[in-house]
Structure formats: C-alpha cells, structure tokens
C-alpha cells in the first residue's frame, strides 16, 4: 500500500522527528472526548508530535484539515471519518503526497483499499449483535411477547444505523421479541429521557429498553424512575459504550447489560505508526478488543476505569 512505499523511501525516522496529523470528528460526546484524550496522551508518551484538529462534526472541515496536513507535510495522517463515504478525492491527494493514512473508530467505504494503510476501531454491527444476543438469552424461555423500545442514536449516524441493524438481526430469531417503539434520542441524556417519558405514556407495559449509548440509557433511567417504576427490574435496560457513568449505573443494577465500545485507541494507533515508521506492515483492519459487562463484571471493572 501507499503507506509502505512512503516509509521505505523515507526510511525509519527518530520518533521525535515524526509528525502525525490527527483529524478528529469533534467532541460531540463524552466517549469522543475520552477517545481524543487517550490518543493525545499516548502520542505524548511515545514522544511523537501530534497535530490535532477538531472538525466540529463536519466532513468538509475534516477534509480541509487533511488537506492542510498534506500542505504542512506531516509524516502520517490519522482520522476518524465523520461519515464513511466521500473520501476518495482527498485520500488520493494524500496518497499522491506519499503520506500514509490510518483510519480510526469508523471505516470508509472506498473501493480502493490502497488509499489507507489500516483501519483501527470497533464494529458497530457486532456491538448491536452482542446486545441482541444478551436479550435473546435473557428471554430465551419467554412465552408471551416481550415489549422492547429502542432509543436510537442521531438519525443517519453510522453507529445508530449499524447498532440497530445488528440488534434487529439477532432478536429476529425469537418472534416474541418485538420492538414496539423506536425513536431517536440523539445520543444525549436529555434526549433519552424525553423520548422515554413519552414512550412510557404511550406504551403502558414496556419490558426492555435498548439504548444505542449509555447516555440515552441514563436518561431513560430518569424517566422510568419519574414514572414510579424501578429501572433494571420493572424495565430492563441494555446499552452500548461502557463509559464511567454507565458502568456505575450497571453496578447499581439500574442497567442490566452494557456492550463495550472502547474509545482507548491511542496505544494501538501509536503502535501502528511506529511499525509503519520502521517499514513494517500492518493489518488492513484491526478491530479493538472489546468485551461486554454484566453487573458483577462492572462492579470489579469499575475501580480502574479511566473514562
């Protein structure tokens, strides 16, 4: 791939001479911020200069950022695409300039895989599946219908779409499991709360809530409690992410199950860069190892949770 070519030509550099440009999506959620922090910290430790730019959730800004990295002549470019599509043009420019590109957190859909060296991140569909699997097992011996409501992420956002898809796939195996309502809570607590309030009014007997991230789940908890019900018992809650507050709620038994989606990509990213720098090759697709948490696991994991 283009990456190797570039690194061979330039040969191994001293780490402190390396300059890496990182184009972040933005800081739209706690998860994202944790992700940014971790990456910055990791490069700090590795003694590699990291140029950071925040695209404020706008693809055009990210493209601009990448362009300016190319102008500034950085050695490597890493970025978390705001959206999968539409990167060919700018990635071609990077390739032309002989700058290897690493994708983090989200993939791009371009046919030409030579445009980037490696993708490092999570598989949202897989996350959805994990969540679905737990639900499937939980209600394996359910006889009467189980009413599920889904709190979707921002409409149109990749994680929202994939997590819904994966989940739907799995639960379809048991026709008792029905998603009776599904609304977007925009990945926020306030959103999750407001939507849940409304759903509780409209649908008297909800058995389970599947939220696309912890924050919406936490919002839902508020709503459920306000309705005089007990989250985790009257209504079970499954979420994705495993940020600190979520884990806390899980430990307290307000959430029943969390699928991890780790923001801690820094370490691995640094590894990739250094490997490339030494002229090595890396896997084109590296999925971060992610687990799932039940209450017990949460309780022991909680103490040493950095984010």
């Amino acid at each position, binding site marked *: 791939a283009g990456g190797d070519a570039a690194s061979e030509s330039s040969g191994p550099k001293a780490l402190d001479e390396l300059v890496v440009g990182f184009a972040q999506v933005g*800081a*739209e*959620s*706690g998860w*994202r*911020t*944790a992700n*940014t*922090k971790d990456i910055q910290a990791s490069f700090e430790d590795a003694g590699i200069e990291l140029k950071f730019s925040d695209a404020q959730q706008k693809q055009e800004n990210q493209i601009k950022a990448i362009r300016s990295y190319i102008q500034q002549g950085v050695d490597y470019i890493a970025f978390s695409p705001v959206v999968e599509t539409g990167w060919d043009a700018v990635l071609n420019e990077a390739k032309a300039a002989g700058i290897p590109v690493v994708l983090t957190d989200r993939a791009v859909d371009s046919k030409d895989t030579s445009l980037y060296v490696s993708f490092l991140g999570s598989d949202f569909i897989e996350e959805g599946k994990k969540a679905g699997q737990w639900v499937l097992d939980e209600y394996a011996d359910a006889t009467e219908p189980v009413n599920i409501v889904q709190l*979707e992420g921002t*409409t149109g956002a990749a994680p929202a779409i994939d997590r819904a898809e994966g989940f739907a796939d799995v639960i379809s195996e048991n026709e008792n499991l029905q998603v009776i*309502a*599904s*609304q*977007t809570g*925009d990945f*926020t*607590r*306030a*959103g999750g*709360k*407001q*939507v849940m*309030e*409304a*759903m509780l*009014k*409209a649908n008297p007997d909800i058995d389970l809530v599947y939220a696309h991230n912890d*924050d919406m789940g*936490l*919002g839902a908890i*508020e709503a459920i409690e*306000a*309705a*005089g019900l007990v989250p985790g018992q009257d209504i079970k809650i499954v979420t994705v992410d495993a940020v600190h*507050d979520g884990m806390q709620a899980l430990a307290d038994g307000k959430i029943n199950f969390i699928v991890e989606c780790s923001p801690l990509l820094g370490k691995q990213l640094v590894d990739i860069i250094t490997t490339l720098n030494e002229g090595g090759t890396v896997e084109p697709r590296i999925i971060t190892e992610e687990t799932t948490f039940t209450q017990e696991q949460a309780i022991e994991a909680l103490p040493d949770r950095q984010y």
Partner: protein
Amino acid sequence: MLFVLFVVNLIAFPGFFSITIKDGHLFGSLIDILRNGAPTLIIAVGMTLVIATRGIDLSVGAVAAISGAVACAIILGSPNPGSPATVAVAVLVAIGISLVLGVWNGFLVAVLGIQPIIATLILMTAGRGVAMLITEGQILTVNSPPFKMLGSGFWLGLPVAVIIAAVLFAAAALLTRRTALGMLIESVGINPEASRQAGVRARGLLFGVYTFCAFCAAIAGVILTANTAAADANNTGLFIELDAILAVVIGGTSLAGGRYSLAGTLVGALVIQTLVTTVYTVGIPPIATMVFKAAVVTIVCILQSPRTNQALGSFRRSLAVRAGKGAAAS
C-alpha cells in the same frame, strides 16, 4: 393550532390528556409538555424582548450550556453537593456569569453597533467552547437532590421547572407592561431615530434586553442540566436558539422588531414542545419526523396569515382589497 395538535394526539393516543397522581405529584403527557417546554419558553421570553428591539440573540444556547456547566462544576467541587446552600451558590454564580455575558452582547450591539446576529454569533461559537473548557468535554454528573429538584422535581404537585417558568413569565410581563419598559422597547424597535429624538435611551434598553435574555438563558441552562443532573456542554441547549426564535415568531412577533406579544410567545413555545412530544407519543418514525415538523409549521403559518383569515372569515368580493390596504398601511 395547539388545538389541532392536541386532537391529533387524542386520536393517536387516547391517554394523552389523562393526568394522574403518581407518588404525590401530577403525571401525564401534558405535564411533560409543560416541563420539557419550560426551558424553551424561558429563553423565548428573553428572546421576545430582544427581537422587539430589532435584535436577535443566537448565543442563548451557549450561555445555557455555560451556566449549566458552571453550576455542575461548582456542585461537584464542593465538599457536600447535597446541601441546598451549595446549590444556591452554584446557581447564583452561574447566573452571575451569564449576566456578564449578556452585558457583553449588549456592549457589542449597543456601544459598538455591531449587527446583533454577528455579535451574538461570536458568543454562540466561543461560548460552547468555554462551556466545554469548564467540563473538559466530559459530561459532569452531579449527585445532588436539591439541584435535581430544579429540573425534574415537583412542588405542590407541580413540576418545579414549570413553576420557575411561570414566575419568570409573569415577572417579565409585569415588568414590561406595568412599567413603560414595553412601550419604550417597542418604540425603539419600530423607529430608532424617532425614539432617539424623543429622548428614549436606546442604549440602556439594549443593554437591558440582552442582559435579561442571557439571564433567561442561564435559568434555562440550570433547568436543562438539572433535568438529567448532568452538564453536557456539547448538547445542553443545542439549537434551542432556533426553537426560541421560532416560538417568538409563531407567537406573532415580527423579526423586524416593534410590537411584541409575550402571550403569543407562550403559545408558540407550547406549540413547539407539543409538536416534539407528539412525535414521540404518536411514534412517528424518526426519518419522517422532520417532514412532519415542516408540514405542521407550514400549516400553522398559513392558518395565521391574514389572507387566510379573511378567506375563512367571509367571502366578500372586497377581501383581496383589504389585503391590499393592509400592505399599503404598513
């Protein structure tokens, strides 16, 4: 209009109007609408006065985020988050800071004479940054019952947020209509030069309205954060400026400034919130939500337009004529 939406709900979901008593407080969709609508309403009240002076304030969302962040940060920092005193201090500081921001806006507009939309756009952008700076991009979760009260608590069976909104609304109405404030604000909005020559102190008024608007934003920010007991610098009050402005305009106040109606704003805010809640209760699929909103807003406006009213009012030939006069008179 509100009525139309209510009917929609009633059909789609009979339980809509049912208000029951759960653990000693009112409970039901209408209560939700009021509670969730409170922050928008509060901001819209401030926005109404700003708009009456031919201005506009885009920074309210950011200010709300800042005040929320400040309040939570202080509560987190304090030894005993649970004590009402701490909360009081936190809220007061938050409001204090927002007042400063309001004065800042007022300064840009009244003293430097920068166009309001740009003047406040600056704070809209930078303000969020500041809020995130305070929270360091994290969501600050506070565990403080008295604070939570402000957002989702109840008092005498009524949501505290609603009570606050009601008080603020009443206060604003009295302040502007019982004193000459309203009239002076309007005159500045209608004809600035004439007002100046009549000795109206436009500068002071501008400072006043922008500061008051920031004050409203601060309170709304506190309620929003207290609602989930967490300060989310990114999302607190995101796009709320649009809702607020929309509420004002639906309420019949012209963005060109001049005559304003707080009552109208109240209706506007309720319409918007009802709309949102309707989407959730009726279960309109997220992908269709926007289209639905578009339809509703369009219908509202067309229903409100004088021409439609005449058409509905009577079928006299001379009606088109009247419209002509209206236009000419303006």
